[in-house]
């Protein structure tokens, strides 16, 4: 079992010694039974850190935010940042390092092993409770998730595999491979499901049915862009789907602005939302590390992870490539090996 006191002590130590300017972690919030992200500045704040299967967020997003803030600051604070990272989160940091978004010495990775458990999927929990809210969610230490239902206070135990996130069921590396320290035991993932299980299941359906299914989902998309906003890999300062598809500066001419290309209209309809989601998926091919954040944050529960794991599966099957597993490796899209398949080039 992970002893949260050890994580707190380590984080406090980093801050006390001034080795980092801040530590990104999880704390209990006022909004829900799930933990919320926090940024610790003082060592004394470390007591608020928590660690359990409600620590859903991939905090690597905030490393990206910090980098962006540094880029526009006249007096950037370039000291390293500490970050609590699960196995999947550490792979996100790996990809950002491969892409030279920041340097290895800019980050202190406080790895935490999921110990073969993982995190709860709020969408699956909502399905179990038919939309009712959980006021407390805890792991029973074995194979069950204890849930207190808000309102009548009902306590239920749900088998973990029924409410754990799909990515956790298919987890290939529950222990952060990229780390400066790891808390918790290095155990193999439980292997509830084989890797890419959900993607393989989805592929069994006929193409027509698959398209009908995605049309249904794209049609429901609100284009709130939460999936993009939460993704640590979606760090572009300009995005093809925005109304302003390039960075406007004081030097941008009126002509450039007038002639900007709109690749995607703002209308949240099937075609425009399909353009948005498919473009995003393609831009994440070989980069997505399967943290599942896009799917978690979707307010209307579009199964976005499927799009990304499908491409992750292609990258794995065609190039034996797993994003973020090895930071010494060149990234998929910037490397070529003689043995790479080239049958698609005609």
């Amino acid at each position, binding site marked *: 079992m992970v002893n949260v006191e050890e994580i707190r002590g380590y984080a406090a130590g980093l801050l006390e010694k001034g080795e980092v300017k801040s530590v990104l972690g999880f704390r209990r*919030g*006022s*909004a*829900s039974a*799930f933990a*919320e*992200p*926090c*940024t610790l500045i003082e060592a004394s704040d470390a007591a608020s850190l928590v660690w359990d299967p409600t620590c859903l*967020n991939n905090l690597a*997003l*905030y490393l990206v935010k910090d980098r962006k803030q540094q880029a526009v600051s006249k007096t950037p604070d370039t000291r390293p940042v500490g970050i609590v990272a699960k196995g999947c989160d550490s792979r996100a940091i790996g990809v950002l390092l491969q892409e030279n978004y920041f340097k290895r010495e800019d980050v202190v990775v406080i790895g935490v092993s999921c110990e073969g458990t993982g995190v709860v999927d709020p*969408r*699956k929990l*909502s*399905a179990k409770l*038919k*939309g*009712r*809210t959980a*006021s407390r969610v805890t792991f029973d230490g074995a194979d069950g998730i204890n849930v207190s239902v*808000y*309102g009548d206070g009902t306590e239920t135990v749900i088998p973990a595999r029924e409410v754990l996130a799909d990515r956790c069921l298919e987890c290939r590396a529950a222990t952060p491979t990229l780390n400066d320290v790891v808390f918790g035991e290095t155990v193999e993932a439980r292997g509830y499901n084989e890797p890419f299980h959900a993607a393989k299941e989805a592929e069994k359906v006929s193409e027509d049915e698959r398209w009908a299914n995605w049309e249904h*989902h794209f049609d*429901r998309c*609100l*284009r*709130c*862009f*939460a999936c*993009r*906003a*939460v993704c640590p890999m979606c760090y572009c300062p300009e995005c093809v789907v*925005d*109304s*302003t598809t390039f*960075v*406007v*500066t*004081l030097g*941008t001419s*009126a002509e450039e*602005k007038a002639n900007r290309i709109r690749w995607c*209209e*703002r*209308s*949240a*309809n099937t075609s425009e939302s399909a353009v948005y989601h498919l473009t995003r998926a393609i831009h994440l091919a070989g980069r997505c590390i399967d943290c599942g*954040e896009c799917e*978690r*944050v979707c*307010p*209307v*529960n*579009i199964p976005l992870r499927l799009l990304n794991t499908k491409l992750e599966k292609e990258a794995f099957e065609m190039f034996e490539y797993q994003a973020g597993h090895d930071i010494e490796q060149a990234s998929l899209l910037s490397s070529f090996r003689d043995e790479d398949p080239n049958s698609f080039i005609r």
Partner: protein
Amino acid sequence: MEKILSQEKLREWVDALDDCEVYAPAFADSVWNFARVKAGADIDLSHTNTIGSVKEFAFPQREVFFCFEKKDGVPVLTPTLPDPKPTVVFGVRPCDGRGMPRNDTVFNKEFEDPYYWARRNKLTLVGLACNQPHSPNCFCQSVGGSPHAEEGLDILMTDLGDRFHVKGVTAKGVEAMERGRDAFDAVSDADQAEVEKVHATSRSHSQRPLGNLDAIAEAIRESFDSPLWADMAQHCIGCGICTFLCPTCHCFDINDEVINPTTGEGERVRTWDNCQFPDFTMHTSGHNPRGDLGSRLRQRVSHKFLYFVENHKTQQCTGCGRCITECPVGIDIIAVLERVGQS
């Protein structure tokens, strides 16, 4: 008009509204949302609250203002004022109901928006009182509402277990009840007593308090330059969940969408916009007066609890709690107001 409707006869009433488009909450894709009801038997009012608010029936995410094309080199505009069938929405929670008069004000006060009103005038809202809060983030009573508030609703239904108490609040509501008159029974003294008891119990459930709303408005006014905003928005990801799901957020963008560049055929379209997006306030110069997430959080909160109060004498928040529950990083408007109030 007050009536009693048995659970079994609900479908009868819904079927009597056969010349209307009827919507009700449905649990699909693991979330409650409004969906078209094809037959009364499909209706299920066991919902918590819908993910989308009822505003979208009058203010859809996409509204075409007019079509344009070039005919013989001359631009021709064709108006496209919507002409929907009468629409009845069941299962509207009182927080969403109270949102609608606030939206009505926005789309009526200085300019009567014909697109909004073409839909709004055809809309009948059938509310369902909340016998208990659905989530710890419900706070209708802290913003002047109640779990059985009638404001904005045409009909208020109250679940009494095996039957509903149904109250026609507006003439439009009474008319919708008249259409299904055979389904209803008279209200007995015992029914009346029970409704009052259920309503009183619903108000007794604890909700998160906000304190004095005038003091909050004042505190916001004084905190415009406070570093608190940046601190509270530290983990904000800048998505549009809070505002798109809000029953009273009404900001929009207008764009021309070209369908055929050769003929110049296209549509002028209004779509929802969102003060949390960076391009919302982007000037053509490239300057952005709300360039950071702190100033955008401040705008969202100030609009609801200060500017709207100054302009329209009421808060632009009805306590549905969606922005809290659905925020991916736990930004909590009640906690925000508490911190601003204490500063």
